């Protein structure tokens, strides 16, 4: 696409490792071969994904314009870069930043790439990556070469691979850590990158490191593999190791990681990671991608059996010097301050400095130095800001810059005496906003802005909430300021909505023939303790009423909380039933002719859609009954949550199953009006009419949600633990959402309910 692409290759020859240059050359050749039709589109899609080249919304060449679906007339209309993915459609480039570590030179190159190949914005993700959007695929090899020339790779940033290895951004300077996990995270990232044993996974694999148990920075609990630094005295000698966790993950149904080892010695870190990779590649699900994450394998086998298999695998591995070579250097100081200590200056305090100091600066373990957090709105930073930030960093620190999982950037080793000056320099470029880590520092995934899976506008909502909260931030009480808000555009949890005080994920509802953007409110999640617990959805709120919902919840918390009570404890004490009751009026959607604003999303003036759906031609009464039953199913999920809250796990699990049955019956009723109420019949009819015909299939998740019902039905008689009841409720919630979507799709397609005889009753 760019005129200079060929010249860049020549210019950067010899400026990157030979094998990296070769990899990019191969990728460029594959692009050419795909253009000539010599590589099959599915294979090419996986090829580019493994290099971080991702699809983006509307890359199927269609876009809803608010009234109808328009065809986007791309020049290479028949050429694709994957199934239903038009070649010329802009895409996203994900850029891996292991443990978030960056140099000033890398910041400058990222700035250049954002303005030359993207739209002038670099986006920090919840995995400490960078993403550039609206990139043309033919520019991606050049982009990769320019990154490689400064030591950055995009390899295995997407696809069924080991994703960016994340780590606490305070590692090495934190006052509470056992030791600095940085060298271990770096070693793990590069050991697993391109390793032959990590090339045959059924799904992605995420790794995180944390220096301590108590803080949130590493979020170990939600990773496939997580390591928390631990020191142990053995024979009077201090040994380093890790509390080692496996099988965690968010996604549609979150799983908490299980403890694999209380103390995995440091020398066992990489061989164990390799053994786990081999077991995952060999035994992990490959065909059904909805159950292909490691969490399902751990859950199915049980942690004891999983541990046994991994240790057996470990024992058989041929020794590799890379397992321990790096350990010789871990004690060497890897970071140093740019400036020697100096006394605090006595200049007058700049306006706004105190507030910024309070929320954005943390003292380091090393006396006289601090970490300054640059709060990025929605994780976005402009090319000019990145470039200026590199200049500022050069004046104050060495290359001690990191991204964070809260979509921010930190400068480490800032001399405390320089903080005022730093503040003024950051303020000059609009990067001195206070409130890092507070309620205004909202995390949001890309949502409908650019993500193909997005249902509602997570970024639009986040921007609106941020504006409203920032306006009154100075008057918010500390208890409210300390809350976290995280928003995902769909159930897939990229915005990590399960682990925040106030979580939201995008859903839709069908109202009067129109589709209305909503967000499920998720409460009860815990950010601290490495994402200690997961919240559950309480109710769906129309997108336009979410700000009011936040206000009402925080007001109530301030009014009724007991002394120093956390928001999580407050929610638990007053109960979800009471919370739902107090939000009931906000859940209602006014008719379209009364207030059409409810029928478009935040930041997007188009009438809302969840696909290429027009206004449905509902069949009045019958559909109303279906909708009524779906609402009842949703209520039942909520009641299951209340049971869970009361510790009635068996009841909770059973209610969740009943909710799924009720939703399935409502769906079946669209074709078979008098479907009987027996579980066996409902499941059989649902399977024949809506699952096998794929009518129930989500456009992206396929049959995943239908499988939730079948599994729940097969295991209807099991005993529930707290965790399994929690998971069943998550599945029920998603099944009900999928039922709503199915009903909307069928209605919009004009497929009217029929009172047909039972389908395929002869089938077993």
């Amino acid at each position: 696409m760019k005129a200079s692409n060929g010249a860049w290759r020549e210019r950067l020859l010899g400026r990157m490792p030979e094998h990296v240059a070769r990899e990019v050359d191969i990728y460029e050749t594959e692009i050419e071969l795909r253009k000539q039709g010599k590589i099959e589109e599915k294979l090419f899609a996986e090829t580019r994904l493994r290099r971080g080249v991702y699809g983006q919304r509307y890359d199927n060449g269609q876009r809803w314009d608010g009234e109808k679906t328009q065809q986007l007339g791309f020049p290479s209309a028949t050429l694709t870069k994957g199934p239903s993915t038009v070649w010329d459609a802009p895409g996203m480039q994900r850029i891996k930043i292991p443990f978030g570590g960056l140099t000033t030179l890398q910041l400058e190159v990222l700035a250049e790439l954002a303005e030359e190949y993207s739209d002038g914005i670099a986006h920090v993700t919840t995995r400490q990556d960078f993403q550039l959007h609206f990139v043309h695929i033919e520019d991606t090899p050049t982009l990769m070469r320019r990154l490689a020339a400064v030591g950055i790779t995009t390899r295995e940033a997407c696809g069924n691979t080991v994703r960016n290895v994340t780590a606490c951004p305070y590692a090495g300077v934190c006052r509470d850590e056992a030791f600095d996990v940085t060298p271990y995270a770096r070693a793990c990232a590069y050991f697993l990158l391109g390793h032959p044993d990590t090339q045959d996974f059924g799904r992605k694999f995420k790794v995180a490191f944390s220096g301590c148990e108590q803080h949130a920075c590493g979020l170990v609990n939600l990773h496939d593999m997580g390591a928390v630094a631990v020191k142990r005295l053995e024979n009077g000698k201090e040994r380093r190791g890790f509390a080692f966790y496996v099988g965690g993950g968010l996604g549609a149904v979150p799983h908490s990681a299980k403890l694999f080892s209380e103390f995995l010695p440091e020398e066992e870190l990489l061989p164990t990671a390799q053994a786990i990779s081999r077991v995952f590649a060999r035994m992990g699900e490959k065909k059904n991608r909805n159950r292909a994450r490691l969490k399902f394998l751990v859950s199915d086998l049980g942690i004891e059996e999983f541990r046994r298999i991994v240790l057996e695998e470990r024992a058989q591995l041929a020794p590799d010097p890379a397992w321990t070579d790096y350990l010789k250097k871990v004690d060497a100081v890897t970071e140093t301050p740019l400036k020697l200590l100096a006394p605090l200056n006595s200049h007058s305090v700049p306006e706004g400095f105190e507030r910024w100091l309070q929320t954005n600066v943390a003292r380091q373990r090393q006396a006289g130095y601090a970490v300054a957090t640059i709060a990025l709105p929605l994780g976005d930073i402009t090319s000019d800001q990145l470039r200026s930030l590199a200049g500022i960093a050069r004046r104050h620190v060495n290359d001690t810059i990191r991204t964070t999982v809260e979509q921010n950037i930190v400068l480490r080793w800032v001399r405390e005496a320089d903080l005022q000056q730093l503040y003024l320099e950051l303020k000059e470029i609009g990067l001195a906003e206070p409130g890092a880590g507070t309620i205004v520092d909202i995390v949001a995934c890309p949502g409908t802005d650019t993500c193909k899976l997005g249902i509602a506008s997570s970024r639009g909502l986040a921007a609106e909430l941020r504006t409203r909260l920032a306006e009154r931030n100075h008057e918010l009480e500390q208890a409210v300021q300390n809350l976290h808000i995280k928003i995902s555009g769909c159930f897939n949890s990229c915005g990590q909505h399960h682990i925040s005080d106030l979580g939201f994920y995008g859903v839709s509802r069908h109202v009067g023939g129109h589709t209305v953007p909503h967000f499920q409110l998720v409460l009860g999640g815990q950010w601290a303790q490495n994402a200690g617990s997961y919240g559950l959805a309480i109710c769906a709120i129309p997108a336009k009423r979410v700000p009011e919902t936040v206000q009402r919840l925080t007001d109530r918390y301030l009014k009724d909380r007991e002394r120093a009570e956390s928001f999580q404890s407050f929610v638990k004490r007053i109960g979800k039933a009471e919370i739902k009751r107090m939000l009931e009026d906000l859940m209602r959607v006014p008719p379209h002719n009364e207030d059409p604003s409810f029928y478009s999303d935040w930041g997007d003036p188009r009438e809302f859609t969840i696909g290429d759906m027009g206004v449905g031609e509902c069949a009045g009464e019958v559909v109303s009954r279906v909708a009524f039953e779906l609402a009842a199913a949703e209520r039942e999920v909520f009641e299951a949550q209340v049971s869970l809250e009361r510790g009635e796990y068996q009841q909770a699990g059973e209610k969740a199953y009943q909710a799924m049955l009720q939703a399935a019956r409502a769906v079946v009723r669209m074709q078979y009006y008098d479907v009987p109420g027996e579980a066996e019949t409902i499941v059989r009819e649902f399977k024949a009419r809506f699952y096998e015909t794929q009518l129930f299939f989500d456009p992206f998740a396929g049959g995943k949600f239908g499988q939730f019902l079948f599994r729940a039905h097969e295991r209807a008689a099991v005993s529930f633990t707290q965790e399994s009841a929690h998971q069943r409720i998550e599945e029920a919630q998603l099944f009900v959402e999928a039922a709503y979507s199915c009903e909307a799709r069928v209605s919009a397609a004009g497929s009217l309910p029929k009172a047909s005889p039972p389908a395929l009753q002869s089938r077993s």
Partner: protein
Amino acid sequence: MDLQQLNLKFFVEDPSGVDLALLPVIFNRWIKEKVAEELLIDVADYRHVFHGPGVVLIGHECNFSMDCGGGRLGLLYNRKSKMSGNDEERLQKVFKATLTACRRLELDPLWKDGLTFQGDEFQLIINDRLLAPNTDETLQKLQPTLLPFLARFYKGANLVVNRDENEKQRFSMAVRSDTTFSVEELLANLS
């Protein structure tokens, strides 16, 4: 020289009266009505970012944005795909596309207090550090094509040209004429 990846920005006369929240509405309408020669794809809203791209209308051949870069609001045309023709024809194409978009914005009924672009000043950027390093040499190479073009464009008015000499920036120059022009007049000068 091989002029590609041109960016051109004309500034808004009175930014204080511009409600950027209207831009997503206007740009979505442009997509819906296919108002431009170029393929228009999507709208990206970056109003939350300080001195950023504002609201961007993403296209295939080019992006249009109501850009806040450098703290000055203006319509930025960002040519992405390769252009055919000679350098002069490419300049003509870029200026025409930019000014046509400016005029379309000026005429939009959504602006309660109107919107006017300053015709007597623009910023020209070559968005490719390899094709056009930010050096005097690039400026010298550009001048034989640019100066006659500008003489016609500004009808012989006196011009002040300033190159941004910050070596970290792309090749960028600000041009100001000593005579006032409206967007409509400039479009007429191009034809």
